[in-house]
């Protein structure tokens, strides 16, 4: 029988929705028994939320002062101990899981499948490579523990209709003290986060200057959207590095993506191809961005943007 341990992601006493989605992925493995581990200095509130996730049998409260923050080198030692009786260990492919799970896999002496986007059977999965420009179907050896991170954009959250039992677990392993949490800061920004925003407006080289790039901010604010930029706009100094959308920047999947004055270099397109609706505004009718756009408008952004603002 398949037994899957899901590592819960949480912060400030709240279970992250990425955990609901990871459980959904686990539930697609027929007949699997799913348990969730909550590592925290005070796990009660999060464990109660995890116990409500459909398909979950048991929730483990794993409490230790060292688990106050998700420090991978500390968490990994505990998870290796918890994982002993499981065939699978899953975590969301967020920065939390990406940081933690390869460390767990290596300590278990196995490899990892990153970014599972579809389950074909208990040991066969589909994942994206080349920023989603190709999909690969992988068979994993059945005689080894299967460690995987789950691409949250590919799964719907499970319902919160479950009623799992909650158990406290004590870790006997010595936790390493060589990594210490030192601080956290949220972006000092009123705008939605580029990575998770439902709407994104991005500007390219055609903006022509950092000053003109403010037009993108104004339009984004009107839409309640996050702001992104092409690599060309970043390289030209019109926009900050952290706004870069594309293969080497952020790979995003908003409901609405509006590319303004972006020609659509390959590496940019790979960053947006999972967006639900792509809008392109560009002067050049031959720009490659129009090949992927759901709605295209050939025109000068400096006349189109004010008109859009007017009609919104």
């Amino acid at each position: 029988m398949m037994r899957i341990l899901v590592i819960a992601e949480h912060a400030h006493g709240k279970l992250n929705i990425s955990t609901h989605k990871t459980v959904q992925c686990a539930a697609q493995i027929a007949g699997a028994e799913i348990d969730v581990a909550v590592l925290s200095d005070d796990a009660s509130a999060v464990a109660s939320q995890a116990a409500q996730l459909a398909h979950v049998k048991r929730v483990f409260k794993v409490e230790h002062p060292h688990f106050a923050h998700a420090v991978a080198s500390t968490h990994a030692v505990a998870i290796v101990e918890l994982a002993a009786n499981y065939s699978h260990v899953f975590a969301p492919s967020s920065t939390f899981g990406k940081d933690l799970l390869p460390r767990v896999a290596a300590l278990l002496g196995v490899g990892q499948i990153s970014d599972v986007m579809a389950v074909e059977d208990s040991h066969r999965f589909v994942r994206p490579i080349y920023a989603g420009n190709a999909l690969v179907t992988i068979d994993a050896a059945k005689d080894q523990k299967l460690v995987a991170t789950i691409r949250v954009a590919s799964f719907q959250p499970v319902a919160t209709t479950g009623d799992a039992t909650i158990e406290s677990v004590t870790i006997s392993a010595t936790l390493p003290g060589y990594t210490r949490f030192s601080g956290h800061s949220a972006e000092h920004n009123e705008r939605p986060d580029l990575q998770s925003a439902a709407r994104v407006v991005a500007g390219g080289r055609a903006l022509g200057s950092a000053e003109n790039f403010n037009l993108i901010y104004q339009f984004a604010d009107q839409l309640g959207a996050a702001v992104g930029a092409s690599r060309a706009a970043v390289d030209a100094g019109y926009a900050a590095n952290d706004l870069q959308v594309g293969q080497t920047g952020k790979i995003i999947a908003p409901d609405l993506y509006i590319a303004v004055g972006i020609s659509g270099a390959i590496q940019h397109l790979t960053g947006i191809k999972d967006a639900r609706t792509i809008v392109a505004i560009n002067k050049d009718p031959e720009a490659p961005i129009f090949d992927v756009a759901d709605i295209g408008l050939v025109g000068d952004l400096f006349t189109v943007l004010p008109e859009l603002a007017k009609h919104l």
Partner: protein
Amino acid sequence: MSKILVCIKRVIDYNVRIRVKPDGSGIVTDGVKMSINPFDEIALEEAVRLKERGIASEVIVVSLGPTETQQQLRVGLAMGADRAILIQHDTAVEPVTVARAFLKVVEQEAPLLVITGKQAIDDDNAQTGQMLAALWNRPQACFASRLEINGNSALVTREVDDGMETLEVDLPAVVTTDLRLNEPRYVKLPEIMKAKKKQLDVLMLNDMGVPVSQQFTTLKVSPPPVRQKGVLVKDAKELIDQLKLKGVLQ
């Protein structure tokens, strides 16, 4: 003084539009431009800057790959690495095997710091740095956007989903780089010429006593679903009407 080990990967250049082989066996690489993985280039740049600031005494660049990987190692040397090590192996291996091979080099060189990219842009696995840190039993600080060495420890600011996190790690440690850490320098011709004289050692993976994991089998590689061709609109008004029609705007 101390060494920094930088792990790089030879990948298809980020500007190339990749093609899936018609028989689904992989990606077309024949005649395709190859480069240093961009995140590893950032790792190299950071290491070279630490040396320029007198914090490191030597930068060693290491890669695992076919013999052609020497080209990328030479670029690394031209960027400012002092010497290079190729762990030669002609077929792709799983990240845990790469980490085991790099660990051998780490044990040999005893670096103060290992820096590598947060992920390679071909397989997008984002595993090797973390696995190396685990096998080495040392701290890891992944997705770094700022790195400050203070004697026997380092402060690393990491890009996490909900903002920035700072970790203090005892050294030695493994740091993986995110995009914002730095902007890699352009390599000038004289450096490329000079790099040809620098030391590049070749080790064979099969001679290193590293267990080669074969946990995973690729069944097929396929192109992603194609997006439907969209519509062209004539003006801003029509654009907004279309968005409302699609239910994207109210």
